[in-house]
């Protein structure tokens, strides 16, 4: 038996190679989405969300905040029934004018003023009058061992003010204030310049004589706290005089603020008749339940809301569950932000059972976590801050033990909590603070 062949005599090898090439070209591994077949599929994992882990809020008064070297001078007094009374006093040193050599014997003294420039910052009601007193310091301003001065520091001053100023602050529309200082002191300084007094020769000599200035707010005036620029040279004690020659010549000797690191703000609080009055000592977390179901954060004063997850350890009982995302949702108390605008950004800082302020919380890439802010202008019910705290939760769970002492302090940026009185009140009534835990369960 013999199979005769088709007449075409194509080499078989060629055909085979062509076919093989064709095969490789047509190799198609791409699978279209088939939507049929899901009914008998056994899913091995699922996404779940749980928001029943308790979020506990408490309020901590940080014992002392370093308020020196922050280039901002706060002075004034404000009181309401939520945060109580805040009084800001400020201390700084002034140095010598640079033109004392120009003085002539016939020059005469006119006046002494002090000039301060607004930073634009204010807290409280600037339509109300405030009164501030300027005192000569009795002692030099000395830095603490840490190299800082704190919101709790103080320096004793003379009992009689060298100037008193009652005014309506114009932090936004105004540029600066300039006010009269007691003539007696002005004359004394002028005479010292004229006589080339040795106290005017060097700055250290001068600072031994004129140890600095305290600006103290009168607590009888409930108005506002105003920020002034405290960078070197921005606060000036101005000594005016005149010289009669061929024409009348105005003379001006500037005693500028020196050593910004020794300028600091003393921030005093009085919590009487507010929910905060239960605070007896600093660095103790007072649960919101003892504060009318609220927690408080305020810069300057050192009030911070502490967030803890006391029942998070229960998550470790969930077998085969991995946290994919953890969202902390906290809501400001209703009606608490009518007078004071809510800050758009608040920050979370690590803390421990001693309530020390640690570093800011970051996400997995190391970026500082900022919240998503929702503002419900009409009903105020949905106003909330949502933080993605996945990394924090996951880190805490990673060693199979969730230390509920490890929590977070809510406050503002470093700069804001040191040199502003920004404030926020959080609600802890039911469902106000929530931890939404998204996890995959397999």
């Amino acid at each position, binding site marked *: 038996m013999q199979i005769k062949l088709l007449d075409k005599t194509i080499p078989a090898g060629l055909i085979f190679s062509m076919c093989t090439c064709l095969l490789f070209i047509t*190799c198609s591994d791409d699978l279209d989405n088939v939507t049929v077949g899901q009914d008998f599929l056994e899913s091995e994992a699922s996404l779940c*969300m749980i928001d029943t882990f308790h979020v506990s809020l408490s309020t901590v008064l940080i014992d002392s905040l370093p308020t020196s070297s922050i280039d901002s001078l706060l002075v004034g007094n404000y009181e309401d029934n939520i945060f109580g009374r805040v009084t800001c006093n400020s201390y700084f040193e002034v140095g010598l004018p640079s033109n004392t050599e120009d003085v002539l014997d016939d020059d005469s003294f006119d006046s002494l003023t002090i000039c301060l420039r607004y930073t634009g910052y204010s807290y409280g009601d600037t339509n109300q009058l405030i009164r501030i007193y300027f005192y000569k310091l009795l002692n030099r301003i000395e830095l603490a061992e840490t190299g800082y001065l704190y919101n709790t520091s103080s320096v004793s001053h003379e009992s009689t003010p060298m100037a008193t100023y009652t005014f309506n602050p114009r932090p936004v529309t105004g540029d600066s204030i300039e006010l009269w200082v007691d003539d007696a002191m002005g004359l004394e300084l002028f005479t010292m310049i004229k006589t080339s007094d040795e106290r005017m020769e060097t700055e250290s000599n001068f600072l031994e004589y004129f140890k600095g200035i305290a600006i103290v707010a009168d607590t009888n005036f409930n108005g506002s706290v105003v920020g002034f620029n405290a960078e070197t040279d921005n606060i000036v004690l101005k000594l005016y005089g005149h010289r009669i020659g061929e024409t009348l010549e105005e003379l001006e000797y500037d005693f500028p603020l020196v050593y910004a690191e020794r300028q600091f703000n003393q921030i005093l609080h009085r919590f009487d008749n507010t929910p905060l009055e239960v605070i007896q000592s600093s660095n103790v977390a007072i649960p919101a339940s003892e504060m009318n179901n609220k927690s408080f954060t305020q810069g300057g004063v050192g009030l911070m809301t502490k967030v803890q997850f006391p029942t998070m350890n229960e998550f470790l009982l969930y077998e085969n569950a991995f946290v994919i995302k953890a969202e902390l949702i906290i809501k400001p108390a209703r009606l608490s932000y009518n007078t004071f605008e809510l800050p758009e950004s608040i920050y979370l800082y690590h803390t421990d059972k001693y309530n020390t302020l640690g570093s800011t919380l970051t996400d997995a890439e190391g970026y500082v976590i900022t919240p998503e802010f929702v503002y419900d202008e009409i009903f105020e019910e949905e106003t909330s801050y949502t933080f993605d705290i996945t990394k924090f939760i996951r880190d805490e769970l990673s060693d199979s033990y969730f230390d509920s002492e490890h929590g977070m302090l809510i406050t503002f940026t470093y700069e804001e909590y040191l040199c502003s009185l920004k404030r926020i009140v959080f609600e802890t009534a039911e469902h106000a603070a929530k931890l939404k835990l998204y996890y995959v369960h397999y």
Partner: protein
Amino acid sequence: MFKKLLIIGSLIVCFNYLCFAQSTSSPYSVFAEGQIEIFGTGTNHALGGTGIAFKSKLYLNNLNPASYSGIDSLSFILEAGLFGRYTQYKTNDEQNSHFNANLKYLTMGCRFTRWWATSAGIIPYSSVGYKISTTDIIEGDLTTYYKTFEGSGGINQFYWAHSITLFKNLSAGVNLSYYLGSILKTETGTTTDGYLTYVLTRSDKVHTFNLDYGAQYTLFVKDFRYTLGVIFSEFKNLNSDFSYTINYNEYTLSLDAEESDYYLPRRAGIGLAIEKGMRFKAGFDYERRFWPENNSFNNPLLETRDGEQFSIGMEYTPYRGRGDQNWKKLFFRMGACYTKSYLIIDKIPINSASFMLGTGIPIRKELTMINLSLEAGRTGTLQKGLIEENFLLLHVNVTLHDKWFIKYNID
């Protein structure tokens, strides 16, 4: 000869790496090692999958290792097959279709001595290929998220078969097979905004050696040749190196999981063939795969049973001798196949039936042939929300005869 070996060698490598057994795209392949491929070369396919009782002669028949005793002495046969498959998936509610094409197998055979013939090749044993999208709801949040199940891979069988002619009418064969495969199954869940995502990946690398046996007994009655063939292979566990991981956010964790239950079931088959010279042959095969009972592959909806396959096929050529028209040199083949798969899903057995038509086109003196076959079939059912797959399968395979040892002699 060295060059040819090199070509063959590289083809084998290409086959394994470029187109690794991705021959299925079927939602039914989500279970275990996926869909068990119909064994056999393209010509076996054209004959409805029959071959237990056929001899390898003009083309290789790898359904029975005893068949190689039919290879003409001193000739070398090389075969490669590819397929293109168009599948339509249907449920009561929806319909999808898919086309895929790939290399299917590569095999070669030759006779060493009067009593010893051999064949070696690669052929897919099973394959996994699916991508199924669905939605789910975040428990506790009532938000919808997407879930996608994907599977790929399969198990290839590398075999080296030996056929020994014991007596004039009786030959026996053994297949030394190495099963090697990797199966990757993933489950992906992702929310619409993409913030929450997890990927559950199960990767199995399986391998094992196995033997299967076959025998053929031939009886000559007048012009007809009757052959009885049997095949058998023993149950064998597939060794699996597996990894089960979950990936969420930027984390990847290895999870504990039970080892996948992959195995080769015990297999037995019997075939009958009747042949008249080269002009006509017909065959009937029955094969049974014994799956252990109550193996549910960790899926409560899934049960297994013994898989069965009934095949029938015939081949005819009108060629009578020199001088016939060219078309008469063609071979015509047809067949039918009914398969009861090992799957019972939600109490519904998954069966398939198909019909084949094919032709063999001789090309050159060395009996080189191009074989084409078209298979039309249906798998599954629409009951209980299951899937019905209607498919058209085109097989193309090339059989090369070569004179490797001396010039080919025709008997």
